C-alpha cells in the first residue's frame, strides 16, 4: 500500500468519526445551518478522498449522501431520524470499506452493488426521487457509477486500443472448481470473445504450495473487456450462465480521470481539508474537548499536506506548531499554510512552495516526531522496568543488612537513593508510554446512546467530560465493556419516557453524563443520569424475591447498602426484560470487570433525581502498592487499596460475643478474624497486650484481620498465581521481595468472612 493509500485510510477513519459525531449533534441541535454545513463538509471531504484513491463505489455512495445533505441544507428536505439513520448507515458502510481497503488495497467485489443500493435508498428521500425513478437517476450519476475497480483497471490497460466510444462489455467468469471434469476450457471460451480489448486471469484464492495442488480443480477468475455484441457474448458463455457476469461498461468509465489531472484535484482536496480544520478552530465559545480538538486539527492538517505531497509545508507547520499551541496560534498557522498552498497553485512551480511529489531535502527534519511502536515492545520495557524495581528493592535490603553489621554505608546509601529515584522515574515514564486518553472509548457513546434511545423511543442527551483523561491502555481498553453496560442500563432502566418525565415536571430529554477524571493516582469514571433513580424499597423486595440474602441480613442493610445489591449476580429491577440491557446480568458484569482491573464500583441514587455509578480504577495495572504483614510467623502481602485503616487496640476495647470477637470502630461493629487461624498457622500466645488489626472493607462487608506486625510497604509488580497454584483461592498473586523471598499476596475479598 503506497503512502497516499495509507494516508487515505487514516483520514477516512477520522472523517467518518467526525461525520458521525456531527450527524448526532445535528439530530440533537435541530437543523442549525452551521451544523449542516459541518456534516456536509465532512461527507464532501470524504468523497474527495475516495476519488483521489479511485474507489468509485465509495464515491458513488458518498455522492448520493452529499446530494441528500445538499437538499437538507437548501431546506428542500427536513432532517428526520430516518435520514440520520440512513446517513449513519452510509458512514458504517464507508467504514467497513475503509477496513477492506486497508486489508486488501481494494473494495470487495460486491461494493458496486452495495453502494448502488444504499445510494438508491438515499436518493429516494430527494424531492421527486421516489424509489421507482431512482435507478434511472443512478445511471446519470456523473461519476463512474458502481463500476468495479477491475473494470476500470482493464479499461486503463486497453485505453490505446479503444477508438471512439464503442459499446463495451465487461466479462467476469468464475468457473466452478470441477469445470475441467465437465470438459470446460475457460481460457478457450475467452479466446472466442470477439473484439477482445483486455484480458486478465487471476487465482480466486491464493494457490496452495505446489506439492498440495490439485491440478484438476479450477481456482481461477477470468476477466475481460470486449467491444462486442451482447448477444454474441451470451452465446459464447451459454453453457455457463451461472458462472459468468456480462455487464455493459458505462460511458463515464471510459472518461475516468487521467492521472495528469490529479494534482489539481489534490490541491483542492488538501485546501478543503485545511479549511475544514480552520473552521473547526474558529468556532467561538468552545471549551469542552478543545485540547483534543486542537490536536486533531493539527494532525489532520499535517496528514493532508503530507498526503498531498506538500512535505515542506507540512514540515514547516509541524515545526512552528508545537502540540501545546493554543487554538488561535494554530488557526493562524493553518491559514498561513492554506494561503501558501493557494499561492503555489496559482503560480505553479515558481513560488516558494515546492510542487507536489517533488523530492525534498529531508535532512533537517524537525526533532519532534511520533513513533508507532508495537504494544509488545512497550510491554517488554514495562517488564524490564519492573525487574529493575525489584533489583532496586534488593539493593535497599543489602544496604540495610550492611548497616546492621555496623558498616559505614553513607556513600552507598546516597548512591542507592539516586538509583531509587532513577528507577522509579524510569518506570513511571515507561508506564506513561502506555497511557492513552479515554477519548477513543467515549467516542462510541454518542452513537450508542442515540441508537438505544431511538429503539426505546426515549429522548436522551449525552454529555461527556474529561475525554483527555489518560490511563493505561489496558485499563482504557477494558473500560469499554462495563461502560457499555452502564450506559445501556442508564438509557433503558434509569431514564423515563418523555411522557413520564413531563408528568414529573422534568425536561422531556434526559441527560446522561460520562465523566472521567483523576484523583491522586486513581482514575475515576462516572456515569450519571437524571432519571427515576433506584428505589431502595423495590430493590429490597426484589432481593427478597430472589433470595439474594437471608431475610434478617437484608433487613439489617441500610438503604445505601441495599442499592449496592443491584451489582449482585442475577439481579434485575426492570419490570420487563428488554433486549437492550439484557437479563439482569449487566451490573454483575460491571462489578466483575471493574474488580478484575483492580477497581471498585459504587452507586449513589436518589429516587426521582437520578443515579450515579462511579468506577474507581487504578491508573495502571502494572504496579500495586502492597503492605507486608506478619501473622503466625509468616509474611503476607495485602493490597493497600483493600486496607481502609490499621488500628492497635487495648484488650478492653475488644468484646467477645459467643465464639466471635469484635470491636466498635466509627460506630460500626467490626468482626475480628485471626489471619494466623485463617492460614492454619500457630497463633500468637501473648495475652493482655494491645493487638494489631488491619481493617478491610470490600463489597459492602467489613472485617479486621488480626496480625502480629506490619513490616513494610512496597510497590511491587504483582504476578498472578501460576502452575499448580493457579487455582488456589484466596491469593491475588505473588511478588518477589528485596531479600529474594516470595511473598504471597492475599485477595482480601476472597478471604473475607
Amino acid at each position, binding site marked *: 500500500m503506497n503512502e497516499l493509500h495509507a494516508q487515505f485510510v487514516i483520514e477516512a477513519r477520522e472523517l467518518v468519526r467526525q461525520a458521525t459525531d456531527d450527524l448526532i449533534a445535528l439530530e440533537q441541535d435541530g437543523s442549525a445551518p452551521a451544523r449542516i454545513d459541518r456534516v456536509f463538509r465532512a461527507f464532501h471531504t470524504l468523497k474527495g478522498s475516495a476519488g483521489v484513491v479511485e474507489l468509485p463505489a465509495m464515491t458513488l455512495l458518498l455522492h448520493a449522501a452529499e446530494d441528500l445533505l445538499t437538499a437538507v441544507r437548501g431546506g428542500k428536505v427536513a432532517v428526520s431520524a430516518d435520514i440520520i439513520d440512513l446517513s449513519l448507515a452510509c458512514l458504517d458502510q464507508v467504514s467497513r470499506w475503509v477496513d477492506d481497503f486497508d486489508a486488501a488495497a481494494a473494495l470487495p467485489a460486491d461494493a458496486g452493488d452495495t453502494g448502488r443500493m444504499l445510494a438508491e435508498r438515499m436518493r429516494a428521500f430527494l424531492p421527486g426521487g421516489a424509489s421507482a425513478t431512482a435507478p434511472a437517476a443512478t445511471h446519470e450519476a456523473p461519476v463512474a457509477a458502481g463500476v468495479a475497480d477491475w473494470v476500470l483497471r482493464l479499461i486503463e490497460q486497453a485505453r490505446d486500443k479503444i477508438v471512439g466510444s464503442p459499446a463495451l462489455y465487461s466479462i467476469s467468469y468464475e468457473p466452478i472448481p470441477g469445470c475441467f471434469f465437465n470438459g470446460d476450457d*475457460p*481460457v478457450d471460451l475467452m479466446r472466442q470473445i470477439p473484439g477482445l480489448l483486455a484480458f486478465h486471469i487471476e487465482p480466486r484464492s491464493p494457490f496452495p504450495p505446489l506439492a498440495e495442488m490439485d491440478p484438476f480443480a*479450477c481456482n481461477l477468475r477470468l476477466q475481460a473487456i470486449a467491444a462486442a455484441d451482447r448477444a454474441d457474448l451470451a452465446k459464447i458463455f451459454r453453457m455457463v450462465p451461472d458462472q459468468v457476469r456480462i455487464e455493459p461498461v458505462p460511458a463515464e468509465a471510459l472518461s475516468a480521470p487521467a492521472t495528469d489531472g490529479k494534482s489539481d484535484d489534490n490541491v483542492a482536496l488538501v485546501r478543503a481539508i485545511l479549511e475544514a480544520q480552520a473552521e473547526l478552530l474558529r468556532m467561538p465559545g468552545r471549551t469542552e474537548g478543545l485540547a483534543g480538538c486542537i490536536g486533531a486539527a493539527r494532525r489532520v492538517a499535517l496528514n493532508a499536506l503530507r498526503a498531498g505531497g506538500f512535505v515542506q509545508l507540512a514540515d514547516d507547520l509541524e515545526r512552528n506548531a508545537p502540540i501545546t499551541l493554543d487554538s488561535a496560534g494554530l488557526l493562524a498557522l493553518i491559514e498561513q499554510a492554506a494561503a501558501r498552498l493557494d499561492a503555489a497553485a496559482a503560480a505553479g512551480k515558481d513560488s516558494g512552495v515546492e510542487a507536489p511529489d517533488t523530492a525534498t531535502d529531508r535532512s533537517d527534519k524537525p526533532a519532534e516526531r511520533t513513533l508507532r511502536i508495537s504494544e509488545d515492545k512497550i510491554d517488554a520495557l514495562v517488564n524490564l522496568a519492573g525487574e529493575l524495581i525489584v533489583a532496586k528493592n534488593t539493593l535497599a535490603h543489602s544496604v540495610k543488612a550492611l548497616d546492621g553489621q555496623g558498616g559505614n554505608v553513607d556513600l552507598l546509601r546516597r548512591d542507592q537513593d539516586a538509583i531509587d529515584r532513577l528507577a522509579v522515574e524510569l518506570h513511571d515514564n515507561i508506564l506513561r508510554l502506555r497511557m492513552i486518553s479515554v477519548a477513543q472509548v467515549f467516542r462510541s457513546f454518542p452513537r450508542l446512546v442515540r441508537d438505544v434511545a431511538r429503539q426505546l423511543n426515549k429522548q436522551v442527551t449525552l454529555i461527556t467530560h474529561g475525554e483527555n483523561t489518560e490511563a493505561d491502555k489496558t485499563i482504557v481498553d477494558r473500560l469499554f465493556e462495563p461502560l457499555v453496560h452502564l450506559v445501556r442500563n442508564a438509557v433503558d432502566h434509569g431514564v423515563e419516557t418523555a411522557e413520564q418525565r413531563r408528568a414529573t415536571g422534568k425536561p422531556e430529554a434526559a441527560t446522561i453524563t460520562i465523566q472521567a477524571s483523576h484523583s491522586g493516582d486513581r482514575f475515576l469514571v462516572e456515569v450519571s443520569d437524571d432519571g427515576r433513580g433506584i428505589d431502595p424499597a423495590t430493590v429490597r423486595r426484589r432481593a427478597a424475591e430472589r433470595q439474594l440474602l437471608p431475610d434478617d441480613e437484608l433487613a439489617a442493610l441500610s438503604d445505601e447498602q441495599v442499592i449496592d445489591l443491584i451489582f449482585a449476580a442475577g439481579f434485575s429491577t426492570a419490570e420487563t426484560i428488554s433486549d437492550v440491557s439484557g437479563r439482569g446480568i449487566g451490573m454483575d458484569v460491571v462489578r466483575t470487570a471493574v474488580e478484575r482491573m483492580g477497581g471498585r464500583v459504587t452507586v449513589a441514587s436518589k429516587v426521582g433525581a437520578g443515579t450515579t455509578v462511579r468506577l474507581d480504577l487504578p491508573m495502571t495495572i502494572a504496579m500495586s502498592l502492597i503492605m507486608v504483614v506478619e501473622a503466625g510467623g509468616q509474611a503476607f502481602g495485602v493490597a493497600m487499596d483493600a486496607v481502609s485503616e490499621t488500628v492497635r487496640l487495648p484488650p478492653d476495647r475488644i468484646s467477645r460475643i459467643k465464639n466471635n470477637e469484635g470491636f466498635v470502630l466509627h460506630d460500626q461493629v467490626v468482626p475480628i478474624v485471626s489471619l494466623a487461624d485463617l492460614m492454619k498457622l500457630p497463633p500468637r500466645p501473648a495475652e493482655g497486650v494491645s493487638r494489631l488489626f488491619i481493617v478491610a472493607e470490600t463489597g459492602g462487608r467489613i472485617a479486621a484481620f488480626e496480625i502480629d506486625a506490619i513490616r513494610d510497604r512496597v510497590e511491587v509488580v504483582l504476578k498472578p498465581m501460576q502452575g499448580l497454584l493457579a487455582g488456589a483461592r484466596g491469593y491475588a498473586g505473588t511478588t518477589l521481595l528485596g531479600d529474594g523471598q516470595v511473598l504471597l499476596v492475599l485477595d482480601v475479598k476472597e478471604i473475607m468472612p
Partner: protein
Amino acid sequence: MTVRRAADGTILLVGPCPVDDAEPLLQGLLEASGASVDWTKCQKPHTAVLQVLMAAGVVPVGPCGDVWIEEWWRGNDRETQGQG
C-alpha cells in the same frame, strides 16, 4: 504426451497441451523446482495447464507457439509482476 524433458532439464510443452497434461507438468515442476518451461512449440494450452504455470510462478520461455496466448498471456505476466 506433450510434456517432455530436454537434456538440460528444461520442460518442453510441445504441440496441443490438453487438460491431461496438467498433471505431468505439475510432476515435472515438483521434481525439478526452478526448472524452466519452454512453450515455443506449444499449441492451445488448456486452462488447467496454464493454471499449473501460474501456481508455480513460472514465466515460460517464449514466445508461446500459440499466438492468442502470446498476445494476452504476456500482458498478464507483466501486470502480475507489476502488482507484486
